[in-house]
């Protein structure tokens, strides 16, 4: 039977060829997808497939064990609430991506009646489940989620749950109060602005008092952060933008109170409320967060929550924090070694790719130390812990100085400007006052002094940065480049030196290329493919994907046996096929680049498949464009076998460093910074964590943004790597827009000042000028950001 290659898996949408997985007339790419379909169809839940085509996601090859969820000490930290009958727990599920997911997760009660209610949050990728724990354990619930393809991510950072919840509710309440007062005081100010007849004059007094009443909560509640921040900035002998803002707010209130109490004028209550309202909106815009991304991850979200400890009464899962020196651990296939330990038993082939950048698994002999962070591939091994988790080689990195949260020594544009701005502002205000005092008009002197501070209050200036940068942020976001905050965009614009990691950063781990060295006939290839189809090993899958188009028809497999970490032994069409590493197939171990898969048929070695990590698409173009404005360097933990090749891609003056330890990477960044370079580091693994943190801007490159990525300032989706030069140019343009809008707001200030120094500024003038300048700035920054984004081809032309 020959099935066309174009068929898509009914569940996940992957291409299906030569499948044996079928159900109800639908084809599936693998057993995992088929079994999810079976579970759903048996509960009459095919509706899942109706909202979207191919809503499923392929199950990850790495299966996690959940025995530890039976341990009460651990689960207590995971759940939100528990009483005699029910338990409520919230899980983070990275694979939530469409409306079908929401539907399925909210209809879990159809799969298991013990689930009372489940509610999902699409943007946060969370699901909140209430279930009867007498009928369903937490472990049972998690395993049910795993069975239907929605594996929750449970990490130590979730268990500890610290500093995760960031709330904007306080700010929103302040905006609401300011908006309420703004609207009401504007309504009460209108009669004054339109002019009142003499018979209405007694209203003016009442309106004045009410206005003063409305400005009180704005001053004391909504605007109090500005006073606090200004006070702190003065104590540090610096002048940030909040100093003139707080001064403006205070003077506005003082003059309003004076005019109302002395019945000498209507005051500026609506200007005060409007000012604080717009400022707070600007602050709110700036504080937008990514719910589903974390920029603060450390080793705890990479490590497992629990590990199996061997004691007299057999293996038992224990929380990681309870692991002590001398404990014996059992590490199964694909589990992570959580602490430095000595190998006691078993064949260890440890994949350190995430820790060191070295791409091939390292073989260890009995008695050797295995450092924490490696992933065991192959059979289960027994280890004895020699160092506690927090003291291990890898985790010790986080105790290093660079990992301590440090104050950014970077000055944003508005901070730089505000120093001069405040000084000039106070200078003009005092000059105007002194002038009128000498002219013998004391009343006018006070009027001019306060008017200058009011009219020059840098509201538009304070808004130009947040509005420009948040517009830029959402454009980066659409292009799958997620930046932590607005200040980081200004950092990006200032970069003059870029350092790359190799594995996973400039090479793409997802799409490795295959080629065959040796002699293999087409029908022999068919045998190899038939054998490899049964295996879940990444290399086998890669091999099948590569070779399948060259093979037609399928060959029955008579016998099959997979030796984890070594290879596959199978009898296909009465011929014995061995696919695996050198020792397994009887080849004297040979070096060379890339991962090698040797093939022997009927005990005769036929050759080997070479999997090479290809460079990211258009790497040389990207580097060529970047080299025009920046110094480029490469720093890798891997060996230097690809050095000659990279030499050709990188510019001639670039440093290419190999065999670098995590600490050395960090020190290298430090040395570049000492030469007053502003360094951007691009990396992906735990070994880059120090360098990412040390760099002025750390960008984590990730092919699946939901996977672990170390703490950084920005996360770049691997697919958008090509756009990196455009991102840099756009960041520079964004800073240019801020400069331009600063010019505009300064023009408004100058126009206002020319009235203010004469002491002839009317409340109406202030009430019109302030919102007008604000609207101009918001309009200008929005339009300009979109124009520049179009110019840099980051958004499509309409």
């Amino acid at each position: 039977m020959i099935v066309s290659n174009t068929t898509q898996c009914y569940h996940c949408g992957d291409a299906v060829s030569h499948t044996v997985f079928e159900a109800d007339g639908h084809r599936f790419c693998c057993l995992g997808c088929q079994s999810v379909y079976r579970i759903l169809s048996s509960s009459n839940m095919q509706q899942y497939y109706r909202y979207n085509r191919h809503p499923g996601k392929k199950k990850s090859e790495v299966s996690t064990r959940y025995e530890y969820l039976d341990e009460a000490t651990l689960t207590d930290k995971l759940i939100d609430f528990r009483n005699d009958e029910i338990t409520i727990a919230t899980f983070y599920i990275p694979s939530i991506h469409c409306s079908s997911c929401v539907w399925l997760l909210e209809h879990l009660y159809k799969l298991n009646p013990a689930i009372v209610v489940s509610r999902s949050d699409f943007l946060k990728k969370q699901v909140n489940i209430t279930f009867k724990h007498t009928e369903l354990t937490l472990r049972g619930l998690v395993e049910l989620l795993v069975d239907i393809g929605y594996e929750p991510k449970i990490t130590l950072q979730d268990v500890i749950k610290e500093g995760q919840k960031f709330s904007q509710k306080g700010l929103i309440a302040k905006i609401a109060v300011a908006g309420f007062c703004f609207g009401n005081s504007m309504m009460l100010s209108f009669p004054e602005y339109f002019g009142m007849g003499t018979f209405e004059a007694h209203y003016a007094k009442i309106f004045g008092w009410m206005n003063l009443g409305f400005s009180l909560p704005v001053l004391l509640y909504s605007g109090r952060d500005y006073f606090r921040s200004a006070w702190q900035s003065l104590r540090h002998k610096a002048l940030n933008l909040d100093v003139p803002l707080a001064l403006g707010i205070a003077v506005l209130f003082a003059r309003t109170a004076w005019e109302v109490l002395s019945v000498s004028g209507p005051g500026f209550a609506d200007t005060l409320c409007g000012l604080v309202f717009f400022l707070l909106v600007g602050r709110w815009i700036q504080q937008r967060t990514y719910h589903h991304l974390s920029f603060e991850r450390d080793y705890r979200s990479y490590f497992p929550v629990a590990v199996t400890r061997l004691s007299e009464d057999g293996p038992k899962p224990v929380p990681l924090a309870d692991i002590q020196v001398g404990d014996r651990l059992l590490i199964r296939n694909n589990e992570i070694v959580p602490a430095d330990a000595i190998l006691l038993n078993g064949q260890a082939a440890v994949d350190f790719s995430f820790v060191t950048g070295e791409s091939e698994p390292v073989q260890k002999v009995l008695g050797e130390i295995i450092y924490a962070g490696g992933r065991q591939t192959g059979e289960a091994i027994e280890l004895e812990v020699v160092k506690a988790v927090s003291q291990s080689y890898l985790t010790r990195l986080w105790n290093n100085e660079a990992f301590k949260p440090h104050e950014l020594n970077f000055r944003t544009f508005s901070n730089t400007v505000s120093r001069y701005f405040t000084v000039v502002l106070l200078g003009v205000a005092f000059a105007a006052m002194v002038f009128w005092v000498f002219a013998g008009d004391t009343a006018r002197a006070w009027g001019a002094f306060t008017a200058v501070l009011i009219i020059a209050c840098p509201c538009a200036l304070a808004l130009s940065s947040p509005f420009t940068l948040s517009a830029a942020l959402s454009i980066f976001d659409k292009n799958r480049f997620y930046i932590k905050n607005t200040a980081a965009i200004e950092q990006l614009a200032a970069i003059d030196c870029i350092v790359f990691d190799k594995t996973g950063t400039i090479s793409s781990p997802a799409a490795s290329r295959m080629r065959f060295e040796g002699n293999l006939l087409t029908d022999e290839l068919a045998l190899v493919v038939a054998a490899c189809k049964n295996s879940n090993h990444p290399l086998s899958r890669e091999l099948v994907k590569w070779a399948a188009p060259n093979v037609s028809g399928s060959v029955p497999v008579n016998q099959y046996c997979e030796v984890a970490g070594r290879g596959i032994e199978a009898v296909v069409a009465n011929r014995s096929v061995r696919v695996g590493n050198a020792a397994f197939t009887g080849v004297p171990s040979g070096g060379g680049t890339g991962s090698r898969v040797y093939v022997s048929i009927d005990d005769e070695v036929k050759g080997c498949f070479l999997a090479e990590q290809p460079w990211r698409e258009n790497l040389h173009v990207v580097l060529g464009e970047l080299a025009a404005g920046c110094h480029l360097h490469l720093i890798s933990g891997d060996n230097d076998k690809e050095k000659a090749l990279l030499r050709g891609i990188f510019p001639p003056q670039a440093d290419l460093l190999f065999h670098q330890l995590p600490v050395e990477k960090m020190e290298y960044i430090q040395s570049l910074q000492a030469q007053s370079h502003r360094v951007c580091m691009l990396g992906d693994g735990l070994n880059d964590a120090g360098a990412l943190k040390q760099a002025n801007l750390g960008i984590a490159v990730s092919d699946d943004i939901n996977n672990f990525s170390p703490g950084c300032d920005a996360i770049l989706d691997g697919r958008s790597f090509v756009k990196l030069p455009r991102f840099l140019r756009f960041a520079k343009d964004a800073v240019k827009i801020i400069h331009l809008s600063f010019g505009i707001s300064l023009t408004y200030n100058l126009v206002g000042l020319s009235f203010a120094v004469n002491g002839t500024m009317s409340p109406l003038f202030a009430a019109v000028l302030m919102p007008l300048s604000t609207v101009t700035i918001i309009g200008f920054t929005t339009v300009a950001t979109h124009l520049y984004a179009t110019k840099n081809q980051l958004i499509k032309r309409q």
Partner: protein
Amino acid sequence: MSAIFFLIGCSVFIALIFLVAFFWANKTGQHDDTYTPSVRILFEDEVQEETETLPKES
């Protein structure tokens, strides 16, 4: 003439009600998830789904 004081009092009172309503909504988390309800409302009811899957007899 005093009608205007009454009207201003009313308008401020109504505005206060809205402010309190906003605080209540904010505090009870009604603005926490502003996206998922838009997905949820499009799901079909269970009853309809079952009549649809019944084989047609003709």
